[in-house]
């Protein structure tokens, strides 16, 4: 709508007080992305290094010679390593299964308590999680030593499983409890009204409703148990070494077999594949459900 022949200065956006931040924002965005991926890289650095060392033909961990997969089948040749792996799986599987079952029932029991009592017990439940491993490990060790006059060979599998149960049950409870709070309280009453006995209703109605919490609790318990070093370190005996204790001892002697890296890489890969399959199945399930609706 300009009038012919008349010209006047047109105010620019800047003169209205608009400042162009788009370049600045773009720079910040790039910096943010770089920082984000650098941190992720640092979190994964050790795993990357372990993976590279597992396919290194040379036994020397400081120089790369060529790609080789010999360390993978060699896992089965290393007797000490195999024994440590077996011990780790033995302790972790017993502890995880027991912790999942016990933790679930304990959580149901705690949920039935009054709020005040539940919060008190919850505080106690957090002690094994928040207490430093070294204090937990050391104090449990002292208690088991008190039992030594009665059971001289107590240190070993039994003490390890007990110690692992002690710090894994709280994780199961922590992940089951929120699911219990989410369940419809009428569900249980309905089952009881229909004549189901309480414990049968618990197993047939409540447990299926909280199974996602039980499952994630189980995964957490397994994670904590399989990777534990400090508590196991203080509570083992009779040469019953798990993987962490064995590696810790071998680092001191400076001759770690590259098969350890191979085993660790395999475990990481299996975990990753397992999680992806789980994720895929969950998606499919969700897809089916929405298909019906």
């Amino acid at each position, binding site marked *: 709508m300009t009038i012919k022949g008349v010209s006047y200065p047109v105010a620019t956006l800047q003169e209205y007080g608009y400042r162009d931040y788009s370049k600045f924002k773009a720079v910040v965005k790039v910096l943010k992305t770089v920082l984000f991926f650098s*941190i992720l890289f640092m979190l994964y650095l050790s795993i990357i290094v372990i993976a590279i060392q597992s396919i290194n033909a040379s036994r020397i961990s400081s120089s790369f010679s060529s790609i080789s997969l010999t360390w993978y089948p060699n896992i089965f040749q290393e007797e000490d390593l195999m024994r440590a792996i077996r011990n780790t799986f033995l302790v972790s599987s017993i502890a995880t299964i027991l912790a999942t079952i016990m933790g679930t029932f304990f959580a149901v029991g705690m949920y039935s308590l009054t709020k005040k009592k539940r919060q008190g017990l919850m505080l106690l439940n957090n002690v094994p999680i928040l207490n430093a491993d070294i*204090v*937990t490990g050391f*104090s*449990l060790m002292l208690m088991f030593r008190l039992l030594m006059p009665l059971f001289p060979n107590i240190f070993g599998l039994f003490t390890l499983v007990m110690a692992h149960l002690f710090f894994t049950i709280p994780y199961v409870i922590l992940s089951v409890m929120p699911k219990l709070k989410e369940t419809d309280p009428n569900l249980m009453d309905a089952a009881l009204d229909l004549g189901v006995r309480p414990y049968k209703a618990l197993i047939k109605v409540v447990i299926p409703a909280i199974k996602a919490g039980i499952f994630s609790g189980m995964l957490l318990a397994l994670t904590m148990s399989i990777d534990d070093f400090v508590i196991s370190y203080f509570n083992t005996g009779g040469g019953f070494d798990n993987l962490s204790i064995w590696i810790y001892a071998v680092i001191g002697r400076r001759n770690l077999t590259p098969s350890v890296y191979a085993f660790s890489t395999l475990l990481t890969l299996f*975990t990753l594949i397992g999680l992806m399959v789980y994720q895929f199945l969950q998606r499919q399930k969700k897809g089916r459900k929405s298909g019906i609706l």
Partner: protein
Amino acid sequence: MGKSFKILAIPYQVWLSVLVFIPLVAMVVISVTNLNSTVTLSELQFTMEHWVLLTQRPTLIAFRNSLIYAGSTTLISFVLGYFVAYQIFRLRIKNKFIVLTIVILPMWSNLILRTEALLNIFSENNILKSIMGFSLFGNIAGTPTAVLIGLVFTYMPFMILPIYTALEKIDYALEEAALDLGLTPMQSFWKVVFPLSFRGVVTGSILVFLPTMAGFAIPKILSKGRIIFIGNIIDTKFIYTNYNSGALLAVILLIFILGSILLMTRFDKEGETLL
């Protein structure tokens, strides 16, 4: 749910009482008496002789190291961890599972083995150097920097998860309201989002601070035994079966821990951000 299941909580009360209190009481008793495997109950007496340990220079240095390294690790993890948690939160990935997986996956590998791998990378000649031709970190094995980097990136997932959990629980409507009422995005972050995520920060800080302060494997491996934490002294006492002194140091650590737990329960009554 009916009251009929109350009974299921009783075994856990017993279990926790036995496994929390008996070991702790045993630890406290051993730290103030001469009890050991050769002393019979009739000879048992109260003694403070182990307490001399607390005035010795190595112990004091170890305490100072533990606190300083734990403090710096917590601070760095908080800054970087909050950033990571916030970026993931802003991606608005609906699937929390993927996020958890990415952050937790490194923790599935053995901690000791990961630390050993870091030691290799921090050494002058390392495997990445022999592949890429240049060294990422130079020769920092055995230095405080190596220990600090190792601690920060080992424990950071424990900072990221609770912060992410706290962020995720924030109702988006609150942020929208803040923006509608004329706050800039920066202001709405500092005045709305950050305070609401603060209990996640508290939980995360404690989950990083405690294991760092009480740890002994990472400093021992990455400093090549040069930097002594309080845990390393406990470890030595344990190896030489001097349980009285070990127990004493563990009791002192426990006091710090109890303080932290009390602090956390002020912000998060039932430990909801622990997971």
